[in-house]
């Protein structure tokens, strides 16, 4: 058995980007099959246009159509493309100086081997059949005898926004101490650690005491009964929410622990939940247990009298 537990996590969101008038002009051009650059105060044509002039700092307003053909000024080979790159086969990234531009644009060049690309080679734009006003509307390919194939403009609304999906896949690794905590939960136990310096019992254990930095080792099993120190009734639905509102999210200070854990309170009307209420862990059926705090389905009132305020006031 490995010392630590880990699990995959995906954090994904479709961010939007307002392009503003300058990049919007460039992307509108791509959608309509033309490459638009911007002329700087020094007379250079830059593709994509700079939002603000590097010398005067004024917003770029002088737009110039450049040719869909150009020359490779430098390049690099991508032997093993990763997900969401322009091609799922080997290709080149190239700096292409488009005819009419003074600064090259970095983009994908569709060639099947590094032998087919060289500095100085002539290339042309190849337009996507379905263009949406994004940089992916275009790739480059070696210049053909007939030249690039033109496409029809698609719409008359200027592009003002793009969607940028971001997806991060990573492995969430629990510390050895946390792993022991989650393994305990898989056995129906709640296990913390005591700090040898301040004697506080942390649930879950933290590896090192957050207050004094001392490494923690001594395991302490705490009670499955505790006190609600404070809580919130969540009435708000939101993206990614796992529990249907309204629900009570409460800090539960387990007997024997010195820090409260955040958990769900059920078995009582939300409006009846009180600070100081005594609650106990209600476990899911053992067959559903895993290495997770979710093994405890929720906490519910024990029916005992509320804890005295003095017993938890230092935990607020």
């Amino acid at each position, binding site marked *: 058995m490995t010392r630590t537990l880990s699990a995959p996590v995906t*954090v994904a969101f479709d961010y939007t980007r307002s392009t503003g008038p300058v990049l919007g002009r460039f992307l509108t051009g791509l959608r309509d099959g033309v490459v638009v650059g911007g002329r700087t105060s020094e007379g250079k044509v830059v593709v994509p246009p700079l*939002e603000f002039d590097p010398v005067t700092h004024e917003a770029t307003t002088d737009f110039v159509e450049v040719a869909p053909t150009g020359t490779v000024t430098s390049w690099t080979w991508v032997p093993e493309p990763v997900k969401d790159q322009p091609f799922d086969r080997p290709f080149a990234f190239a700096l292409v100086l488009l005819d009419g531009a003074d600064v090259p644009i970095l983009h994908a060049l569709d060639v099947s081997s590094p032998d087919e690309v060289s500095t100085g080679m002539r290339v042309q734009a190849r337009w996507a059949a379905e263009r949406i006003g994004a940089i992916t509307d275009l790739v480059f390919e070696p210049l053909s005898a007939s030249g690039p194939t033109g496409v029809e403009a698609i719409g008359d609304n200027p592009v003002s926004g793009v969607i940028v999906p971001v997806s991060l896949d990573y492995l969430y690794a629990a510390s050895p101490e946390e792993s022991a905590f989650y393994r305990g939960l898989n056995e129906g136990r709640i296990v913390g650690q005591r700090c040898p310096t301040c004697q*506080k019992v942390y649930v879950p254990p933290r590896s090192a005491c*957050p207050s004094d930095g001392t490494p923690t080792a001594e395991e302490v099993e705490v009670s499955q009964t505790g006190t609600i120190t*404070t809580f*919130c009734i*969540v009435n708000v639905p939101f993206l990614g929410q796992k529990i249907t509102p309204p629900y009570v*999210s409460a800090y539960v200070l387990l007997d024997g622990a010195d*820090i409260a854990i955040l958990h769900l309170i059920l078995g009582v009307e939300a409006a009846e939940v009180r600070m100081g209420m005594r609650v106990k862990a209600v476990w899911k059926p053992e067959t559903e247990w895993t290495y997770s705090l979710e093994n405890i389905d929720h906490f519910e009132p024990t029916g005992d009298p509320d804890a005295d305020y003095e017993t938890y006031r230092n935990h607020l």
Partner: protein
Amino acid sequence: MAKQPAAVVGVGQTHHRAKRLDVSMAGLCREAIDRALEDAGMTLDEIDAIVVGKAPDLFEGVMMPELFLAEALGAAGKPLLRVHTAGSVGGSTAIVASSLVQAGVHKKVLTVAYEKQSESNAMWALSVPLPFNMPVHAGAGGYFAPHVRSYIRRSEAPTHVGAIVAAKDRNNALKNPYAHLHNEGTTVESVLASQMLWDPIRYDETCPSSDGACALVIVDEDTAKASPNPAWIHGTVMRSEATTAAERDQVNPQASRDAAAALWKQAGITSPIDEIDCAEIYVPFSWFEPMWLESLGFAEENGGGWRLTESGGTAMDGVLPVNCSGGVLSSNPIGASGMLRFGEAALQVRGAAGEHQVDGARKALGHAYGGGSQFFAMWVVGAEKPSN
């Protein structure tokens, strides 16, 4: 060498809105920057260094604003720093900028902070479920609501005090043309009648989601001579603490108390309530006004804060007008919200706050906090050059 005097001579901000779909992030920043430079009577070319701040990366999906904004911010060929301290970032960013002047490294520093909440979803970003854990997190409101409940219990506050704050700030915002929310006719009763979102926090007691930016020009003593109304920096402080620790005081965090004590000492202030003329305090949920009033030492702990608020003491005509701009409750481009507090404090002592100006304001507090009440940034600005 002692700390060099530094002053704010330019303040700029955008008109904060739910969605600024007409501008890019760079364009948003430049709106604030251009206004700050115009206020300072300067051009970007005169600026020595630039310091940028924004909200946490997941909030907008932008990890390196300094990289993609360098050109638009006019930073090519100049030092460019990025500051990152969660919700307090706008304040911390201004402090880092001021420290470059106070240290004598630069004479004219531009600082900008921004956020486009419309391009993402902060609630989602704050509630991403982690493996092995209970998915009970529910955004910033879900995080802070239990601590607000703790404050109410500890201080035995009447439950309508939060509504007093919300009604005050929303009405103050009517006097601020840049504020996001201009909700006419907000009253304590209308706030109390609004939906309970994260009990005990109601809809009208929460900040909006805004797109916006703020920029400041901070300069040395020589440069400040050209300004008719510099806001002199009398003290700056930042403090941090652990998010979770046994018996950590989440209502009145140690780092906040320590920061305030250090700030008043630095600024030579012995009685904040008497010596500070107005304050811009980071209040994203209404109850944080009385909570921070106590933590900052404007009122006694465990009740002085809500009593001050309830008595009208924090209204425009009170003993300590708080958030005359409408505050975070009326505009919340998170990455910029701290700098807006710092900038609004500067506007007050410069006599440049317009319709929400506090008459005769000479010393003002700018305040920001972030994370799980674990990052604090504060400054005191004054109409006079500090004597210390």
